[in-house]
């Protein structure tokens, strides 16, 4: 964990813990946004869905490590990389979409693991 939310920012401990909670609580919505976009793309290429998919995965890839959620980085990176390609090339194939669903499941498992660990740490 890069910044210890249990208290090394003098006077900012509670705020920091709250920011960590918000990140953790917001993970299901991020996952859902990726899933909705991927399902739309699996039905047929759509530039808006491709952009949403890419941006959401990319954002998670860059933000997760700052919150110590290192397990999320590999699947989020895989999704962001393929999403970037889809967005830039304007197309995707069924095999890539299928692989992306597998990465999304990997991401979901890592989110559950991180959330459970973070809740455990918060509980003391």
């Amino acid at each position: 964990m890069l910044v210890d939310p249990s208290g090394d920012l003098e006077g900012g401990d509670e705020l920091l813990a709250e920011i960590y909670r918000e990140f953790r609580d917001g993970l299901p919505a991020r996952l859902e946004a990726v899933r909705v976009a991927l399902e739309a793309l699996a039905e047929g290429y759509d530039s808006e869905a491709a952009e949403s998919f890419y941006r959401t995965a990319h954002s998670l890839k860059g933000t997760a490590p700052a919150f110590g959620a290192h397990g999320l980085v590999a699947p989020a990176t895989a999704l962001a990389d393929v999403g970037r390609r889809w967005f830039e090339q304007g197309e995707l194939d069924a095999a890539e979409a299928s692989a992306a669903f597998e990465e999304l499941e990997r991401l979901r498992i890592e989110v559950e693991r991180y959330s459970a660990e973070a809740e455990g740490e918060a509980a003391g």
Partner: protein
Amino acid sequence: METVFRVVLMDDDPDLRKLVKLTLEFTAGWEVITAADGVEGIEAVRSAKPDVAVVDFMMPGIDGYEVCRRLKADPETAHIPVVFLTARKELDRLKVEEVGAEGVVMKPFDPEHLADRVRDLCGGEKA
């Protein structure tokens, strides 16, 4: 009177914005003004006249390069150092030089050491 170092931070991720803002305020004592996209960020720079603008590359609307290009093209903001936040894969050093940015901080970065990195890239002035 002590002068507070002021930074405009542009990043479209709300969780990262809050974390970086809090960390810079508490570890470095900086004043941090945040913006969720490039257009909002440019306005913030024009009105706040910060000591540095820290800019995420990948933002909806205009990207970090364009933000930097516009800030450097404006005589009111051209002198303000611009530091990019980016993942290594997205980095195009030629473009960074072309738009006149002062430096790059790679993601993932340690929020606690971000102030030091930005201070180094800006030549340590005032920070």
